[in-house]
């Protein structure tokens, strides 16, 4: 138990990231409210970014911006995960924007953002 706790504390960012990923995933799957689905999606993606950032960080090193011509590898943290996080943020922003635009369309038509109600209304319309 003590060892387990020590591992959790040593990898606290990764642990938190995994828990957040689970929360985001389950909510994206099960939430009925569409806005909450968007938020859950953002929690899920941000947790991945947290995981990446935590993995790329090396204790005691600085951001990979070269000053004073210091090219030694031991000065800086790993820059690649930061690059991946940036790319990932761009992707998740575009997806959120698209998702919100769709929700706006549905809200204008049905005046609700509960997906269950929208489904029943859409079914009634079809009949």
């Amino acid at each position, binding site marked *: 138990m003590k060892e387990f706790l020590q591992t959790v504390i040593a990898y606290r960012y990764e642990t938190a990231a995994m828990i957040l990923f689970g929360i985001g995933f389950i909510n994206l799957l099960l939430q009925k409210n569409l806005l909450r689905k968007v938020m859950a*999606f953002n929690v899920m993606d941000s947790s991945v970014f947290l995981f990446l950032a935590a*993995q790329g960080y090396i204790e005691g090193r600085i951001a990979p911006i070269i000053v004073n011509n210091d*090219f030694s*590898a031991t000065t*800086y943290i790993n820059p690649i995960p930061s690059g*991946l996080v940036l790319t990932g943020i761009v992707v998740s922003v575009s997806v959120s924007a*698209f998702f919100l635009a769709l929700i706006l369309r549905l809200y204008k*038509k049905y005046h609700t953002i509960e997906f269950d109600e929208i*489904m029943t209304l859409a079914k009634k319309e079809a009949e």
Partner: protein
Amino acid sequence: MGAALSTGSALLFSEVSSAGGMLPWYQNIPFASIFLLMIAGIIMPLFRKGKRGFCLAMGVSLLVAALSAILLVKLSINGERFTYMMGHYPAPWGNEIAAGPLEALLALMFSLVEALSLLGGRKDAASDILEPKQSLFYLMMCELQAAMLALTYTNDIFTAYVFIEISTLAACSIVMARDTAKTIVATIRYLVISLLGSGLFLIGVVMLYCITGHLLIPQLGEKIAGLVATGTYTEPLTIVAGLLFIGVAIKCALFPFYAWLPFAHGGATTSSSAVLSGLVLKGYIILLVKLFYEVFTIELIRSLKVTNIMFVFGIAGMLVGSWRAIGEEHIKRMLAYSSVAQIGYVFMGIGLGTNLGVAAAFYQILVHAVTKPLLFISAGRLIRVQGHEKSLYRLRGSARNDPLAGVLFTLGALSMVGIPLLAGFVVKFSLASASLLNPNRMWIALIALAVSTVLNALYYVPAVIAVWTPSGFMQRKKQPPDWMFGVSGAVLGALVVFLGLGCIGVIGVIQNGLSLWL
């Protein structure tokens, strides 16, 4: 890292100086295809008229198809597979494209089928989509095709993730192009499911990077081979393989995750349904097979039992998809359920775990990429001549109003059932012969193939009979002939027959390409 970076820049320098005359011109084709499609998408909004957008999208697709054909000929003569550096950064740092005969063949098929689907569905798109939005629809089609080509060609798993998201957004946009409340509801379902899938894929990619420190497929493969040899990181690797597999399986509608597909594909406009069912699902599968072959190696995947899961879910998909199609009255939803079954065949082939099985799966990818668009555009034409009726009951007799559409629908349906001389038969035959090599799974595979063939016949044959049976729903007024549908349907029909008769050569190219992957 800094030392690595400085050697990197030294290498970079030598690459730039040596690349001048060295690179054979045809190696630029994969990048040029993706780039042309993206540029076409960017200039698309400048066109106000949908017709011009359509012409541009068609032109670029056909151009890319022609380029891919040249690449295919060049590569299959030499039996060559090359990697192409993006931006001249050498291997462990830069981004790469890898192309061999198999990738070129898939790119050729994708571009050709995309162009034909656009052509065959043009009349429907013109009436279904508002005029000012039409060029945006063709924009999304171009981006979707670019994303699929990128998924086929890329050698970098993070690039693959980005293009998965691009293809998700583009695919959702073409589903909602009709802009009715019903299609928006279907789009939201599709989007949510897709995001769950790509979330799992993303975390899988990130974990893989954290374990190995690489993003390029060849380097990943080497590292993982080392890890397997030393027996470290076995559990994380299992989890990563599972995450990548489930992420892709959700997005390509493998058995338990298929509920979103009929609504998304059934409600969309004709070109969208044809492209979604025929092509989009395939891009993800190709990526998955590439990851499993080149990153994990097929032996590792077999020892992790992922092939068993694929085999079981593939068979379940074959049976459940067909079963649901039998009970479906809406013709386009029936075709969509049939896609679930056809994806099942692909996964069954991969799940056999032999090279012959994977070759059969790739043949099925090509065959379905041709046959399902043929069925969707001829169904779209039948629906139009019958005055926009979509249920099979009310479509009775529609083929008599447009015999060409009826004949093409019949041809596609017979191919799906597996009548000899047509493409579907070759798939079933090669899957069956591949299963003979795996004695443990032979009986299950053969029985599943037989049952699913009967199930296919149980809904395709009644559908064919229905469209030829005269009824009171037939329109008195003759519809004007549609040469665009005629041309695209005839070419797709010819391809179905070609894939049925000329299978030896195509299977040869696939096996040649697969052997270069190993």
